[in-house]
């Protein structure tokens, strides 16, 4: 890596713009959110966020988001690998399809997934006799969160794989490394930081997801209710402060998780580089 020059033309202007933009778009709304949440007394705040129904919803929201992101970690990597390393008919189409979950309104995704996985749906009708219920169960929530998270892993890993030169693998092979060893010692460490980034993005995205989940989850209290649904329920009671309190919990949890993943990523980058 080349060192950055200490003085870039327009640095002051661009930094100022960046700070202003970030404040307007990110920090200000967050500040309002926190201010709303802490218009509650501490006792009210804790009562809201530690309510058993809320806790059940955190478990589902975070658990299903984690499962979704983990599935994407594995299969997103495979998709990226196939797209980078192989040429086949229709590759461009597959490549474009990967971004579809980004473009599709989430409610549309939710309705489509429910149509597939409902007991009489195209896929659901074959799963139901096997005793596998997808729609209206926590599994359905995980399916929706997997769907919306896929592009994150693919799109972060893809460029890294593209930059990895085939020659390195060939060199490893010529030095007698087995394929597994080449993967384990050469390829995997190089893509690990990107994989972690993709995982973190997919995970964070899934925690706040609402539109696609409410259709497939069935929204049963204590069983298939995600935290964002509880937030909406509080808003229906015009309980803005209570809704903000739950949002703060999601935000703080997500932030801590993202921070941890960032630290992990930093560590793995250094290990791979050194």
């Amino acid at each position, binding site marked *: 890596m080349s060192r950055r020059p200490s003085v870039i033309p327009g640095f002051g202007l661009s930094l100022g713009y960046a700070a202003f933009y970030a404040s307007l778009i990110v920090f200000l709304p967050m500040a309002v959110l926190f201010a709303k949440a802490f218009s509650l007394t501490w006792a009210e705040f804790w009562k809201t966020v530690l*309510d*058993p*129904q809320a806790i059940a919803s955190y478990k589902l929201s975070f658990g299903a988001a984690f499962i979704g992101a983990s599935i994407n970690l594995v299969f997103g990597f495979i998709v990226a690998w196939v797209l980078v390393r192989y040429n086949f008919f229709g590759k461009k189409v597959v490549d474009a399809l990967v971004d579809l979950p980004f473009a599709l309104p989430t409610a549309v995704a939710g*309705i489509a997934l*429910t*149509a597939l996985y*409902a*007991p*009489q*749906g195209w896929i659901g009708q074959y799963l139901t006799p096997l005793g596998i219920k997808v*729609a*209206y169960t926590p599994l359905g929530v995980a399916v929706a969160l997997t769907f919306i998270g896929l592009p994150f892993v693919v799109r972060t890993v893809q460029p890294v794989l593209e930059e990895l030169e085939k020659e390195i693998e060939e060199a490893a092979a010529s030095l007698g490394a087995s394929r597994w060893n080449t993967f384990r010692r050469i390829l995997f460490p190089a893509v690990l930081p990107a994989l972690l980034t993709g995982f973190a993005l997919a995970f964070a995205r899934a925690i706040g997801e609402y539109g696609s989940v*409410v*259709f497939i989850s*069935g*929204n*049963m*209290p*204590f069983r298939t209710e995600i935290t964002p*649904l509880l937030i*909406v*329920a*509080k*808003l*229906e*009671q*015009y*309980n803005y402060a*209570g809704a903000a309190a739950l949002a703060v919990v999601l935000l703080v949890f997500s932030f801590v998780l993202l921070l941890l993943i960032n630290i992990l990523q930093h560590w793995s980058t250094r290990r791979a580089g050194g």
Partner: protein
Amino acid sequence: MFVKHLKKSLLVLSLGLAASTGALAQSEVKLLNVSYDPTRELYVEFNRAFAKHWQETEGQKVTISQSHGGSGKQARSVIDGLEADVVTLALAYDVDALRQEAGLIDADWVKSLPDNSAPYTSTIVFLVRTGNPKNVKDWDDLVKPGIEVITPNPKTSGGARWNYLAAWAYAKDKYGSDDAAKDFITKLFKNVPVLDSGARGATTTFVQRGLGDVFLSWENEAFLALNELGKDKFEIVVPSISILAEPSVAVVDKNVDKRGTRKVAQAYLEFLYSKTGQELAGKHYYRPRNAEVAAQYKDLFPEIKLVTIDNDFGGWQKAQETHFNDGGVFDQIYKPGN
């Protein structure tokens, strides 16, 4: 040189715009009606009728924009600054929130127009599959084992609160006490396999996904479902008792005063009570208030014993507090171990 020229032409342009909008202000007025989901088609027709009426009587052109969404969400948008001249929402509780949360309307808004400021009404009926295979006749059939009932979640859907309260009213009437009614409601919701977040989602669940035996629905929505999805697939069952659903309308006082649209906004809502307005309501399957118009539709809307929020539940504020707020009866149904 160029900049100077540009400035000059911009000045001319803005003067021209100001002049033209100034002139328009006298001959044209704009209204925003913030409503809830299933009234879209009704207001498309009603707005056209009102614009014609206003042009004829006042010689002024009026353009009405409509905004639709979940009732509670729409109310929050207005509270947060969406400049609605009038609101036409699914329940008085959401209209009242404009007063409570933001002081946008007067305290006695419900008396500002006839019939509790609800120009048309509806009620809760059952939609069942053709032939009524589970032989569902009345509310008692909904708590039987093996019956699946589809209704949206009253916590997130304003419309669904009417479903719940209609069932409650039946049980209270038949079994006498609040405790018995609570037992009944608990049993009923044990038969609900899915709680969609909104009314249209629940319709999809019942109609497209084929889930459930009975769908609790507003009467007007049930008719729409029949029309759109086939009279050969579903039937309407009218229970012995239901609730008088009164979707409320109100002028948003603070906004109309600011925008100078009070007169036309008031006339707009009053026109809902006119013969034309009532006929359009009936055509879109809402029960007209006007007796004469209602008589034209009597085949469509059978007489049912109807309870009201005010008489049986002490008004919306109290009903919301008791049943739907956090920790209320609805939450208690789902407490683990219950």
